[in-house]
Each structure stands twice: as C-alpha cells, then as structure tokens.
C-alpha cells in the first residue's frame, strides 16, 4: 500500500469493499466476497490492511437519538475569530464534550463552525457564555438552533462523485 500526501493508494477492489462495508459493516468476509465476485481471503486481507493504515478508523453504531427518548437540542455555532487564534480556539472546542463537530472555513472572515448539543436553551446559552465566548481570539458568535432535520449522512465512499462513478462502472461490467 503506497502513501502519497498522507493518503493511501487504493484500487477499485478496495473502494468496492469500503462501499460494501459502509452499506453494512456487520456482513461477513464471505458475503462481501460473494457480492463483489472475489475470494473471502482477499476481502479479509484488504480489510485488515485498510484497518492497519487507518483508512478504516472504526466500526460504530448510528443511533437515532429521538428514539432513545433524548430531548436534547442541537445548534450550529458560527464563531468569528482572530485568524491568529483560530486553530487554538478550534482545538479547545474539540475538547468540550458538548461539541459534536468542529470545522474552520474561510469566507470573508475566518470562521469556525461547530455543532453543539445541550439539554435545553438555557444550558446551551450557559455553555456558550462561560466556555466559548471567553476563549482568547473569539470576536463574536452567531448561533442557530436546529428545529427539524431533513437529512444527515456520514461521509461515504458512495457520496464521493468520482468514486461513485468508478464503483458503478465496475459493478456494470
């Protein structure tokens, strides 16, 4: 497996295996092998190599929070920062258990976009006022509370337009 610019060189078989795993990570090597027309030992070797090299980071369960009875609120914070402090602010946010996702974005100003979970509006405000606003480099914050979710999909090989074409072409052959 070759490395270039911190990426791992994968071939079409690897991508097809990843796609199968993202579809159902609990299926057996034999089942993947059968659906892709390759030996289960090949599937096993490829998966182990991709796990070793960090291409496959972990296998996890996707939970529907609403069905667990959790009444949390989710909000998106847009944090305007001093460019010199932006990385430090983002790293500090990553340590807070209330923060689910952190991104930086460069539009007209340098922004940090973070997804935050809280028990209610008051605890959300308390967290932002006592733990986010005081961080050095934070200039101002805009927060939008999410009222309805229409779609939420984790990154998938099948969402990558380039790979999607590749996978479809292979399966049509």
């Amino acid at each position: 497996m070759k490395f270039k610019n911190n990426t791992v060189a994968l071939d079409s078989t690897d991508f097809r295996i990843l796609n199968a795993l993202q579809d159902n990570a609990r299926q057996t090597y034999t089942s993947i092998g059968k659906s892709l027309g390759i030996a289960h030992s090949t599937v096993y070797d490829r998966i182990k190599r991709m796990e070793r090299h960090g291409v496959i980071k972990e296998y996890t369960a996707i939970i529907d929070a609403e069905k667990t009875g959790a009444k949390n609120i989710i909000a998106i914070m847009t944090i305007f920062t001093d460019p010199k402090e932006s990385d430090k602010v983002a790293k500090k946010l990553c340590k807070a258990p209330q923060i689910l996702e952190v991104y930086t974005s460069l539009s007209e100003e340098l922004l940090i976009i973070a997804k935050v979970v809280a028990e209610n509006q008051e605890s959300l405000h308390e967290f932002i006022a006592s733990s986010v606003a005081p961080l050095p480099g934070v200039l101002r914050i805009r927060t939008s509370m999410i009222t309805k979710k229409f779609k939420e999909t984790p990154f998938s090989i099948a969402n990558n337009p380039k790979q999607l074409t590749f996978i479809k072409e292979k399966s049509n052959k």
Partner: protein
Amino acid sequence: MNKKMNSRILRTLPREKAFYFFTSIGNYTGESAVSLKEFVEKINEVNMKSLNFHLYRGDFQKWMAEVLQDKELAEELGKLQKTSLSEDSLRNQLYAVVSRRYNELTSQLGSLRKNPSI
C-alpha cells in the same frame, strides 16, 4: 464604609469571569466587561437588544451579586428589571443606577485611602 469590600467590587476580573454581552441565546456581540468601570462604559456602547435581553433575564443582577459580589447594586438592578421602560429610558436608567454606584464606591475608596481611620 469598607475598604476591602469596595476594592473587591471595583477589581478587574479574569477573562473567564467577565460579563459577555449577547443579543439572544448563543448570539455573542463581541462586547464584554471585566470590571464595574468597564461595565458602565459598555452600557452606552452595546445595542439595546442586548441590554433588554440581559436585564429581563436577570443576568446583570446575577453577575453583580455572584461575581462582583455587590448585593446592593444587584438589588437596584432587580427593581429596574420589574419596571417596563422604553428603550432609551431603559439605557438611561441602567446607566444612572450603575454609574451612581460606581462613583459612590470610588469616592468612598478615595476617602478611605486618604483617611484610613474612617
């Protein structure tokens, strides 16, 4: 008069204890105050929406009582919270109450420093 108490109320706070001005839940204006002196100045600078938001939630009162530990000023702000004032009037009243208290504390502290026997 109590020199220790006046100095405590007038002290400059660490960043994490400052008052941060928001306009609504989670929307931080970028304005903050690390002391009573700075708080007085900010009353005339921050937008009305922020003053309204904090006054009627009781945030000013809470910060004065719990962080600056000025129960007297907290009580005064509590009275103001119960009144329904127009926007300009609210800013003026808020400024009058807080600046009066600030001037009172600083002049008392000045007298105590000049004459420690008071």
